[in-house]
């Protein structure tokens, strides 16, 4: 089993993610420079947080059009796992791996604080180790995290149970006061059509060790590892 973390110019959560995977969880993980492309098969590819291309034009817009993203899209089509975190989520949305867009926060400033997320589905390679409805604490750090998609897309995401996480209060209530950025329906993370792509604005790599405040995010990586060990490339 081997995971890849892609480093774009301006990524800054790449090493944190590699640290959690290789040091905390013991997964063989390659840090891949975006210009090198994906040189081999990986079980999972992670698009980390940061400010690729300085967020020029729109967050993630330019990184989404780099050649390595064609490799990532092929990897996803073949059933490989893709996890996009924060800027990685913006890149994945811009590249069409998931519908919609993450754009300027409702209150246009950068927010960096803990958030509480309600796990909306456990029927995914990323959330299988959680309980449905469980409330987890994972921090956000973004200026462009407000999820926007047409009503038809939102309805379809709901119908297909492709909303993975919603911002909630500590009791699990999805209320406006718990929504840090004005995302539609408090959406914090969504799945691609095949359920093998998860994009999320909160940072699980910053909540994978108790020593830094929370390990609630670690089960996302552990779920991915368990999924890969089970050898299934796709599950519904």
């Amino acid at each position, binding site marked *: 089993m081997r995971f890849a973390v892609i480093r774009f110019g301006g990524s800054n959560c790449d090493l944190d993610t590699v640290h959690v995977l290789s040091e905390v969880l013991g997964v063989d993980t390659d840090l891949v420079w975006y210009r090198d492309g994906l040189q081999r098969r990986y079980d999972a590819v992670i698009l980390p947080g940061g400010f690729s291309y300085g967020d020029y034009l729109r967050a993630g817009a330019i990184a989404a059009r780099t050649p390595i993203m064609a490799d990532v899209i092929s990897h996803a089509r073949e059933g490989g796992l893709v996890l996009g975190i924060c800027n990685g989520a913006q890149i994945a949305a811009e590249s069409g791996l998931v519908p919609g867009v993450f754009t300027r926060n409702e209150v246009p400033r950068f927010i960096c604080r803990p958030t509480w997320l309600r796990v909306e589905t456990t029927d995914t390679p990323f959330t299988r180790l959680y309980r449905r409805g469980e409330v987890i604490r994972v921090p956000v750090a973004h200026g462009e995290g407000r999820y*926007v998609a047409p009503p038809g897309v939102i309805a379809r995401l709901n119908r297909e149970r492709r909303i993975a996480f919603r911002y909630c209060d500590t009791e699990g209530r999805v209320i406006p006061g718990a929504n840090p950025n004005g995302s539609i329906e408090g959406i914090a993370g969504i799945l691609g059509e095949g359920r093998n792509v998860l994009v999320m604005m909160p940072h699980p790599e910053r909540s994978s060790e108790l020593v830094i405040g929370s390990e609630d995010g670690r089960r996302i990586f552990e779920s991915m590892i368990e999924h890969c060990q089970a050898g299934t490339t796709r599950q519904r």
Partner: protein
Amino acid sequence: MLFDVIITIALKEGMLDPEARAIQNALAHLGIPTLSLSTARRFCIGIDAVDREEAGTKARAICERLLANPVIHRYEIEVV
């Protein structure tokens, strides 16, 4: 032939524009209340094309493939 193309990218009608709202608030603090305010980005691009039509086609490709995100944006093209 060189064509100068001016592309304007703006949010679609009805889309929340947080920057515009912040600017309106700032103007109000300066004692200049405004009734409406929207923002847009303007790109001036030189394009080599055989005629205006081809310049327009290239400009549309530029909008659709990179400058605009169709989920939230509309665009206008002016070939000068």
